[in-house]
C-alpha cells in the first residue's frame, strides 16, 4: 500500500540526481548554443568558425535531450 505524505503540498523527493535537473542542464545547453552561434559569426579566428557548427549541434542535441528531464 502506498504511504501518503501528511502534507499534500510537499512533493516526495525525486531520486533523479540534483545536478541533472532540467533547469541547470538547459542553461548549460543554452550556453553551448549561444557560444556556437557567436563562434560562427565572430570575425577574429578562423578556427573558432570551423568548430562553431559542432558546438552549436552539441548544444541543440543536449537541449533536446535535457528538456525531457524532470524539473
Amino acid at each position, binding site marked *: 500500500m502506498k504511504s501518503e505524505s501528511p502534507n499534500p503540498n510537499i512533493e516526495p523527493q525525486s531520486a533523479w540526481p540534483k545536478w541533472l535537473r532540467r533547469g541547470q542542464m*538547459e542553461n548549460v*545547453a*543554452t550556453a553551448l*548554443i*549561444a557560444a*556556437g*552561434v557567436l563562434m*560562427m*559569426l*565572430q*570575425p577574429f579566428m*578562423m578556427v573558432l*568558425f*570551423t*568548430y*562553431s*557548427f559542432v558546438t*552549436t*549541434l552539441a*548544444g*541543440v542535441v543536449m*537541449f*533536446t535531450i535535457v528538456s525531457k528531464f524532470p524539473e
Partner: protein
Amino acid sequence: MNARSDSEGPARNVANMTPDRVARTVRGLSDKAIAWLFIGPTMLLLLAINLFPLIWTIQLSFTNYRANRPNAPILNIGLDHYRAILTDPDIWLRMQATAHFVFWTIALQTIIGFALAYLVDRKFRGHGFWTTLILVPMMLSPAVVGNFWTFLYQPQIGLFNYIVGFFANVPPGSFKMLGDVTLSPWAIIIVDTWMWTPYVMLICLAGLRSIPDYIYEAAEVDRASNWRQFISITLPMCMPFIMLAVLFRGIENFKMFDMVNLLTSGGPGSTTELASITLKRAAFEAWRTGYSSAFAIILFVAVFGLANIYVKTLNKVKAR
C-alpha cells in the same frame, strides 16, 4: 435537465445524420483512436511538407548531387561538404557580413523600438493615430519595401539622397547608397530597421503595459526619481520582452533574403552577400545542390538553436 437536453440536441442531430455504415465503424473505436483519426491527416501533411524535405536535405548534404545533372552518378562523399564550408575563408567572410547586418539591425531596432514604445505608452493626444502610423511599415511586403527603397536610394531622383544632401550640404548625386562598398551594408540596415522597428516597439509596449501601477506608486512614495524608476523598475521588468524581441529579430535577420536580394542582390561585389544569398547562389547559380544542402543544414542548426532559446525565454515571459 434542460441544459443537458440543449447540449445534446445538436450532437443528437449530427449522430442521426451519420450514415449507418459509418456509425457502425466509428462506434467500435476508442476516443483515442477517433482523436488520432481527426489529427492524422494534419500530421501526415506536416510530415510531408516539413520533415521530409529536411531529411532529404540532410541526405543530399552527404552527396555530390547537382540538380542540373540529374543523370550523373550520385556519390556518397561523407562530411566533405561540411569540411569545405567550415574551412572556407570566403564563407567566413559571408558569415561576418551576416553578423554585421544582424548586430546593427538588432541594436538599432531595440533602441528605437523601446524609445518609441516608451513614448507611445504615455497617453498623449492622438497617440492611437501615431501608433497606427508607426506600425504601417511592418505590414508591407518585403518585396514592396525592397522595390520602393530602391527608388528612394536613387542617386539622382531618390528622396533619401535629396534629404541627406539637403542636411549634409552635399549634392544628392554625389553618393550611391546601393552602389558604394562602404554605404551599401548600411543601406540594407536602414531599410530593415525602418521596416521592423514597429514590431520591436509592439513587444516592448506589451512589456511596459504589463508593469503594475502600484510599483510606480510605491516608488513615488519612496521619492525615487524618474531616472531611478526607469533603471530599477521599467528596464528590469521589460527585459524578458526585450530579450524576446532581440531573439526573434535575430532569428529572422539571420535568415534574411528577400529584401536584400531585391535591394542589392549581394552587391556591390559581395559586400552585402549574406549567408542566405550565398546559399541561393550555390544552389541555383552554381548548381552545387549537395554543397548548398550542407550549408543549409549548418544555418538550420544555428537557427534551431536560437529558436530553442527563444521558446525558453517565451515560457519565462508566460510564467510571469
